[in-house]
C-alpha cells in the first residue's frame, strides 16, 4: 500500500488537469452570463435572483471548488519548483491546503448567505 505522501502527487496532477478542463466550460459560462449578455446581469437584484436558483447555486459551488483547488495547487507547483520550497515542502503543502480550504469554505459561506 502506498503511503499517503507518494499518492498525493499523481492524484494532484490528475486533478489539476481535470479541474482545468471543467473550468474551461464553467468559467466561460460564468463569464458569458455576467459580462457578455447585458449590463443588467450585474445589478444587485439580478445577481441575487440568479444565485438563489438551485441550478446556479450548484454550478457556482462546483466552480468554486475546482477554481480553489486549481489555483492553490498551481501555486504549490510553483513553490515546489524552487529548492527553498522543496526543502520545506511539508509547510508548503500544509499552507496550500489551508488556503484552498479557506477560499472554498468562505466562498460557500457567501454563496449560501446571500
Amino acid at each position: 500500500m502506498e503511503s499517503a505522501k507518494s499518492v498525493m502527487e499523481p492524484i494532484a496532477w490528475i486533478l489539476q488537469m481535470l479541474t482545468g478542463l471543467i473550468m474551461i466550460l464553467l468559467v466561460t459560462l460564468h463569464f458569458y452570463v455576467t459580462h457578455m449578455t447585458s449590463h443588467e446581469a450585474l445589478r444587485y437584484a439580478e445577481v441575487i435572483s440568479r444565485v438563489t436558483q438551485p441550478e446556479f447555486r450548484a454550478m457556482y459551488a462546483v466552480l468554486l471548488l475546482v477554481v480553489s483547488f486549481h489555483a492553490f495547487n498551481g501555486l504549490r507547483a510553483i513553490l515546489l519548483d524552487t529548492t527553498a520550497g522543496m526543502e520545506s515542502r511539508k509547510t508548503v503543502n500544509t499552507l496550500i491546503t489551508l488556503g484552498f480550504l479557506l477560499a472554498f469554505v468562505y466562498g460557500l459561506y457567501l454563496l449560501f448567505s446571500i
Partner: protein
Amino acid sequence: MVRFKIRRYDGEKSYWQSFEVPAKKGMTVLEALYYIKENYESSLAFRASCRMGICGSCAMKINDRPRLACETQVLTLGDTVKVEPLDNFKVIKDLITEFDGFFEKHKAVKPYLIRKDDNYAEPKELLQTPEELNEYYIFTLCIKCGACYSVCPAAATLDEYLGPAAMTAAYRFCADSRDEGQKERYEIASSPNGVWRCHLAMECSEVCPKNVEPAKAVQLLRRKTAFSILKSLLGW
C-alpha cells in the same frame, strides 16, 4: 573574420574576452575554439572529444542557444559569435561546467536492464521484435550532453530536480520489453524531485542535438508512474 566573444571564468570572476577568427566554409565552432586556444589564448578551457556529435562533451551556449560546438557551423552564426557555458550548471572554468550532479541523477534512475533471471554464469539471449524496439529506440540516442537540462525551467530553480536526460533514460528502460524493473524506476521517478516537477515547457525537446524528445519521454514516464501508483492504491 568572425569575432568570437567568449565568457570566461577564472574561479573568481567572470569576464568576456574577444578573438578574431579567420572562418572558412565548413569550420565548426569547436575548430574555432581550438584555433583560439592554439593561436591566441592557450588558457582557454573547454571540453571536447570526438568532434563528431556522439560523445556529448562540447555542449555549450552559442549565441544564446545550447548546441554541440562540433556540429555548429561558424558561418551560419553571423559576424559575432557569443560562446558561454551551459546554464543551470556550476561553472568550473571558462566553458567547463560541473557535470557530477548530472551523472549522479542519471545513475539514480538505475539506467540498466533489471531482470530476475540475471545470471552471468549462464547468459540468456533476450529476443525483441522491431516493433518492441521502436517503442523506446529514439530515447536510446541520448549522448548526455546536458543541453536539455540547461534550458529546463525546473532545473533552473530546483537543484535536485532529476532533469529531462535522467528521466528519459528511466523511461528508455521502463519501455524496454526486456526489462523487469519498472516498479523500482517508477518509485524513483515519482519522488518529489522527479516527474511531478515537469510542467511541459518543452524547451528540452527543442534543443536536443539528437532529437531524442525528452519532453515526450517525461510525459510517458509520468503517465506510467501515475497509473502504476493509482493501480496499487486501488489494489488492482
